[in-house]
């Protein structure tokens, strides 16, 4: 009997479980293999939709579904909070429940936001990295009548690198439509020396920022908030006043991974091989998605393209054969849509050796993103795309 244990019911965990169930169906049926997913809430949340709660009339209840309904019937779901992992005994302990043993462990535990890492974040800044926070941002925008809006990034790494720039574009378009644009200064703070990390995207985005009158502040990594003066400060030593402050909160990996000695503090990102996705050189532990320390976008797309690699490696081990490197090596593939406002978007697609060459923004890629968001439940987690 081989026991496959997957921690996390997000994109990576769910897709890996379903792919494994499909590839190993005969062995599962024969009782030779078990596949178990442990998820803290039992609810699968489509996080890319949060931005649209703030910017596009999306509703939080449309962005989550029961994890059970997305999983293959051959996969067991355990709803519970993980307390620790002991690689020596191949055991996972739950806060409330019996320990679970494994032969192969998949860590699809995502990232978590830690706004509390920055003093006054909770009272001074808005964000869109939870459904609740996105709704609060929507309310703040509804009551906004003009002034300085500052959009910045308060930690590295963070989920969905294009998101803050997308939000800047979308807010600008909204303010124009509401007749508030000439009463508003918009400031976008980029952590690096250009508007966006990918040079070709930056070259595309910079004239759009200029055309939209969004002031670009380069090398501005948000470090602190002075609540008394309503000023945000950068680790490079500059500051900007605001009336409405929108910040990407700091992110970390899961605390239990640090406590278990699998991920180093303070970030908590799992040391993951860029090709095999093995953690810390261990042949029986894999990681994918946000949880890894790979230099890649923390985005569902990354997990989506990593899941088949983890699947192939585990299936090969279970079947006692060598890995098919065509399917079992991750080449760094990521693909995501990028909104630029006014109903237009583009597509970013790249891997370790091929930089992105985004097409000229048009309505098609914006519609592509909308369609992808709406059809997600029937496609990605079930391995249909």
């Amino acid at each position, binding site marked *: 009997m081989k026991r496959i244990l997957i921690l996390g019911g997000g994109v990576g965990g769910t897709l890996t479980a379903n792919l494994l169930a499909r590839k190993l169906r005969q062995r599962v049926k024969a009782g030779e293999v078990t596949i178990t997913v442990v998820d803290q809430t039992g609810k699968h949340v489509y996080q890319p939709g949060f931005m649209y709660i703030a910017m596009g009339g999306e509703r939080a209840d449309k962005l989550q579904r029961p994890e059970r309904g997305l999983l293959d019937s051959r996969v067991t779901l355990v709803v519970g909070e993980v307390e620790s992992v002991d690689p020596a005994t191949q055991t996972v302990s739950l806060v409330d429940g019996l320990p679970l043993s494994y032969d192969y462990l998949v860590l699809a535990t995502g990232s978590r936001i830690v706004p509390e890492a920055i003093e006054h974040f909770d009272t001074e800044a808005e964000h869109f990295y939870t459904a609740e926070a996105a709704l609060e941002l929507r309310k703040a925008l509804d009551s906004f009548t003009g002034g300085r809006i500052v959009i910045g990034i308060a930690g590295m790494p963070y989920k969905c690198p294009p998101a803050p720039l997308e939000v800047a574009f979308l807010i600008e378009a909204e303010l124009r439509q509401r007749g508030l644009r000439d009463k508003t200064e918009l400031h976008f703070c980029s952590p690096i020396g250009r508007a966006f*990390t990918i040079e070709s995207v930056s070259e595309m985005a910079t004239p759009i920022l200029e055309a939209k009158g969004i002031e670009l502040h380069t090398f501005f990594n948000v470090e602190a908030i002075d609540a008394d003066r309503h000023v945000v400060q950068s680790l490079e*030593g500059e500051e900007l006043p605001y009336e409405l402050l929108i910040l990407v909160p700091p992110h970390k990996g899961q605390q239990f991974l640090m406590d278990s000695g699998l991920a180093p503090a303070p970030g908590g990102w799992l040391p993951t091989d860029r090709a095999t996705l093995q953690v810390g050189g261990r042949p029986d532990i894999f990681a994918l998605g946000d949880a890894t320390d790979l230099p890649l976008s923390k985005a569902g797309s990354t997990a989506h393209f990593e899941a088949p690699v983890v699947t192939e490696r585990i299936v090969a081990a279970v079947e006692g054969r060598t890995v098919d490197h065509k399917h079992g090596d991750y080449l760094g593939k990521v693909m995501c849509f990028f909104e630029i406002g006014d109903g237009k978007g583009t597509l970013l697609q*790249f891997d370790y050796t091929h930089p992105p060459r985004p097409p000229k923004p048009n309505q098609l890629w914006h519609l592509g993103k909308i369609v992808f968001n709406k059809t997600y439940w029937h496609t990605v987690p079930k391995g249909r795309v």
Partner: protein
Amino acid sequence: MTDTITAPAQPRTVDARGSYCPGPLMELIRAIRESAPGQVIAVYSSDSGSRTDIPKWVEKAGHRLIEVTPRDGYDEIVVEKTH
């Protein structure tokens, strides 16, 4: 009284080869944020733009650029977090 000799901190390696998003500079900023002053960080970058944008940021943020060394297909850029 005994003097304590502190060994130089082990350089932290950030392998950002093939990173287009978030990119080598973002990976360095992450490492700087996570490190204590005095930590030396070696960034591996296959993006030729890093040769200019990393030193620019290091200067702006007040850290210290130790060296930029061309390797086989990538650059090794070594930085010390000073504060």
